[in-house]
């Protein structure tokens, strides 16, 4: 695989917000004292009149966003995933989810690739929390291009959307001009021995793993499942029918995320053996992102190991 450009999806988020702001007057952005880190500061600089810092008050921010949405604006409310999905869970559930308001939550610093800040800031529970809310759409793009396209798609979609972005710069593999379809998985590679269903930064790791597995004689069907909810069940079932074995990969706890969503679908509709790669019911720790990811098994080499064992 040739060298590629690396972009953090949070940077793509900031860029996409600015582009939205240029196109639509009704886009407003809120942050909770993290505009520099979440990259909403890019929007703030371009449209100071449509940016509202709420201070370190995520609960208030989510409900303010709800209120703004009832007056015709499309708010993007941002913080780190830990605080957007975690601290403000009940506000999102009751003031955004229950009334099904048109609020977009732009959560950055998802997963353990936050790195040095350590476990208190490494949110591996956000998919689980957000997908448990009726009517909530949950998206985790795999690279900068997809992230930008997902922001546009979220704007066009009427209803609450949770978008998860990362802090770490990761390889860009989508072509410019890529169109994001909410609820549709993307088949990156056809295969017949095992299907890998991944999202976020694990997609590129899975791509690397698939290359290596090919040399070992294992044919991998590779799916980028950026939308965790609603899950593209049709594609999951197609992968199960074609390969008979599924591996899920996500930068999230193995509890409640993409892996469990895939398992729930398969258990009811087409029982199929599954291996889940994710954070194994543990807290992360401080360290450079790449090292922390590797220690938790969120890397190509572990996917290869799991796949080989699975396909024996």
């Amino acid at each position, binding site marked *: 695989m040739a060298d590629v450009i690396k972009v953090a999806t949070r940077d793509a988020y900031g860029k996409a917000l600015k582009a939205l702001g240029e196109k639509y007057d009704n886009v407003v952005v809120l942050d909770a004292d993290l505009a520099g880190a979440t990259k909403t500061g890019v929007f703030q600089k371009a449209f100071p009149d449509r940016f509202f810092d*709420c201070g370190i008050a995520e609960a*208030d921010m989510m409900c*303010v966003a709800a*209120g*703004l*949405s*009832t*007056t015709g604006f499309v708010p993007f409310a941002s913080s780190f995933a830990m605080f957007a999905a975690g601290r403000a869970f009940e506000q999102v559930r*009751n003031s955004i989810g229950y009334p099904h308001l048109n609020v977009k939550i732009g959560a950055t610093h998802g997963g353990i690739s936050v790195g040095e800040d350590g476990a208190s800031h490494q949110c591996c529970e956000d998919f689980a929390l957000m997908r448990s809310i009726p009517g909530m759409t949950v998206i985790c793009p795999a690279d900068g291009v997809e992230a930008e396209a997902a922001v546009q798609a979220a704007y066009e979609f009427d209803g609450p959307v949770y978008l998860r972005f990362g802090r770490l710069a990761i390889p860009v593999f989508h072509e410019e001009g890529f169109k994001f379809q909410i609820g549709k998985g993307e088949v990156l590679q056809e295969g017949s021995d095992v299907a890998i269903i991944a999202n976020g930064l694990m997609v590129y790791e899975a791509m690397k793993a698939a290359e290596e597995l090919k040399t070992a004689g294992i044919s991998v069907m590779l799916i980028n499942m950026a939308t965790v909810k609603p899950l593209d069940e049709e594609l999951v079932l197609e992968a199960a029918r074609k390969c008979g074995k599924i591996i899920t990969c996500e930068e999230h706890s193995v509890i409640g995320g993409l892996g469990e969503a895939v398992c729930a679908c398969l258990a009811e509709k087409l029982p199929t053996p599954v291996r889940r790669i994710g954070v194994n019911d543990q807290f992360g720790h401080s360290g450079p992102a790449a090292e922390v990811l590797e220690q938790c098994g969120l890397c190509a080499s572990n996917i290869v190991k799991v796949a080989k064992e699975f396909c024996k």
Partner: protein
Amino acid sequence: MTASEKLCLQKTACKVRMGIIESTHAAKCGHPGGSLSATEMFTYLYFKEMNIDPKNPKWEDRDRFVLSKGHTAPGLYSTLANRGFFPVEDLLTLRKTDSYLQGHPNMNMVPGVDMSTGSLGQGISVAAGMALGLKKAGKDARVYTLLGDGEIQEGQVWEACMFAAHYKLDNLVVIVDNNGLQIDGNIADVMSPYPIVDKLLAFGFHTVAIDGHDFDAIEKALEEAKTVKGQPCAIVMSTVKGKDVSFMENNAGWHGKAPNDAEYEQAMGELKAIMAELEGK
């Protein structure tokens, strides 16, 4: 206001109270106490103050009301029904399966409800967001939100207060129903939020304290609020929980309990006597 206007509001408030008793009695549950304490405010807002149209509940230029103390839905529902947003008979379906009158307000089900509430401390933030949005959209509409005095123990309330003052939301009026009681007892004993007025002043609100059962005082406070520029307003109203139903007055036990048949008869008898007295004026 004229004496006849006031009398009319008093009669309406009495009807709203009857609706609260009838609906919670029919539901065999619900929250009469805090609904009865805020009845004059509900009545004044919907029958005099707010620019609304019951035939067009989602009218974009309307004033908004957010019941941050969402458990007092019976008070809001009875007010909306009497104002013509939906049939008064429907109040008897409160909390029943298949009714649109949920235990706590749902904006997508009940005509006239501007925000789904129930989880305390959130409505005030939503109201602040509405006030900001209306300002940004260049609309003159105003936003009113009603909080319980126990509710202000929620930290989010003060986050919202900071926000409202910071963004100079002078189209927002925060009303605190200071009936002095919460589920576990006197608010001062459970977790004192006092001094409420001083706290709101310190948070940057133009704040007035009134008798929440006095329509003249309510009118004065809300008129004064319209003259304030560059800061949000707060009205802290002293009220009696369970007002006008003798056995419910100042009794925390009636926070979230419905009258049984005998209690219903007594409560309605008392309210009918009040109505008869008002009609004799």
